[in-house]
């Protein structure tokens, strides 16, 4: 919207952006400063050497769960989107709409049966116990995004593949996946963020401290009544430590995230 800006305009724009940036950085910067209070880096060591919460294991758990959920959603949703977009079969619309109809359901709405299902299947306190529900609750929305995108891939390409004698699975691998990359990155980024940040599913289905995710471990530190200044400083150190993995993932995946969020789903 800005063309041929005068120098003063540029200054004003920079100033507004900087002021907002200061507000947005303040909570993080303050947390870093307070986390170094009283014992300095000792607060960080205290969190890392915590007798009940194993920091590296917690980060690994969250990472493993988020990666597996993302891969599983990617696989299940691309397979289904391919069928719904490019194949003809009975009950197609009924099946598609009954899957996509679940896209806005929060896990909290069905929390009791979720707990009993996990118990019956014997997957409480396990990776699959968190991953499977995360896949189920994330897949419908991702299916809608992917199916939409796959619809825009011309059928003529697949027809050419059929004439060459390709099997349907080979066309999935060599045509749909490569051509669908923008939408696949989009759903991968969203699924990763959603599953890394999820709180209610681990809260319901995990009891062992060894299985804690980042979100549950955070709740462990905030849950104790933190009255002494030492404990507040330690809480801050824990919050910073729990944030660092997100920032590292963001730094590595920055471009994928920025472009991925907008491709596929958002056609404006």
């Amino acid at each position: 919207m800005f063309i041929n800006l005068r120098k003063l305009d540029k200054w004003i724009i920079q100033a507004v952006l900087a002021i907002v940036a200061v507000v947005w950085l303040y909570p993080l910067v303050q947390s870093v400063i307070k986390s170094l209070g009283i014992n300095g880096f000792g607060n960080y060591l205290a969190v890392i050497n915590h007798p009940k919460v194993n920091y590296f294991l917690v980060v690994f758990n969250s990472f493993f769960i988020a990666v597996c959920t993302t891969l599983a959603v990617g696989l299940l949703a691309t397979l289904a989107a391919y069928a719904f977009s490019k194949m003809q079969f009975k009950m197609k619309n009924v099946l598609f709409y009954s899957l996509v109809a679940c896209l806005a359901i929060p896990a909290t709405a069905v929390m009791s049966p979720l707990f009993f299902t996990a118990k019956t299947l014997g997957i409480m306190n396990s990776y699959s116990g968190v991953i499977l529900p995360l896949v189920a609750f994330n897949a419908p929305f991702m299916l809608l995004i992917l199916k939409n995108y796959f619809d825009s891939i011309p059928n003529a390409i697949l027809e050419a593949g059929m004439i060459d004698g390709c099997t349907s699975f080979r066309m999935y691998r060599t045509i749909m996946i490569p051509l669908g990359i923008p939408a696949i990155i989009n759903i991968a980024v969203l699924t990763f963020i959603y599953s890394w940040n999820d709180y209610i599913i681990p809260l319901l289905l995990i009891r062992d401290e060894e299985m804690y995710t980042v979100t549950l471990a955070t709740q462990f530190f905030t849950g104790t009544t933190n009255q002494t200044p030492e404990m507040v400083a330690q809480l801050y150190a824990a919050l910073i430590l729990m944030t660092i993995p997100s920032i590292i993932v963001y730094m590595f995946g920055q471009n994928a995230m920025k472009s991925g969020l907008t491709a596929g789903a958002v056609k404006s």
Partner: protein
Amino acid sequence: MNGNRSVLSGWRAYLYILPILIVSGLFLYYCIGFTVYTSFHSWNGIDSEMKYIGFDNYIKLFDDKSYHIALRNNLVFFIFTVGIQAALGLMLAILLRAKLRGHSIFRSVYFIPTIMAPIIIAAIFRIIMDTNFGSLNEGLRALGLDFLAVSWLGDPKYALMSIIIVNIFEWMGFSMTLYYSALLAIPDEIYESAKIDGSGFWRTLFKITVPLVGGTTSTLVILGIVGSLKTFDIVSLLTGGGPGRSTEFLTTYVYKKAIEEFNGGMSAAAGVTILIIALILAVLQIQYTNRQQRDL
């Protein structure tokens, strides 16, 4: 929808959708069915013993004042968070679009909270917003604005607003990122000719920019409704639904009824009302994406 006919057919198609159907069957359809079933029963949420009581849970639910509060809070939360996140996000995206020095650093700074877990953001703000020791009130007092140093999370008048502020902090960068990409797609020539026609800033904003990013706005509204329906972690850590029940949300209501009050039946009935809202939202979303596709 689109005029393309499908290229493949046959029973193999079902193999492609079988995996997603199995996972959804176990964790979505079964859980939905179970929730609907228990909503017509008296159940403590633990034992296998259930007693059929018809619509009693729903009658009690609609008489419950804290359920009304939860419905209202969800609505207020949705309107304010989506509205402010979109307006602020669009404004910053426009300023960033000028591509002045440092704009990519600013973009990253605004986006950071989006990748942090809401529970961590809530934990940080719970200390910042503390009435006596929080740096928010310390800052206000230092500026001589003592009358503004209220009990942000402990006063029913302000608690919901504080939750809304924290949510805006978390998600504004997300709106900004989507708007920024949408703005990149608008050619400069449009703005140049608007300028030649003598169109001022606000006129250009409302007559050109806002209509051209309409697709992004609709996406944000839909994601915002879905998000507000799911909101649980920020509320449970910041206020736990309190003080009293002033910041109860539908999700915290369901959680409390089951876990704290052992009223599995009423919890399920409230869950069913969430399911109905979620279904309406899904229909709107599907219609919207279909329309969007037709327009292309």
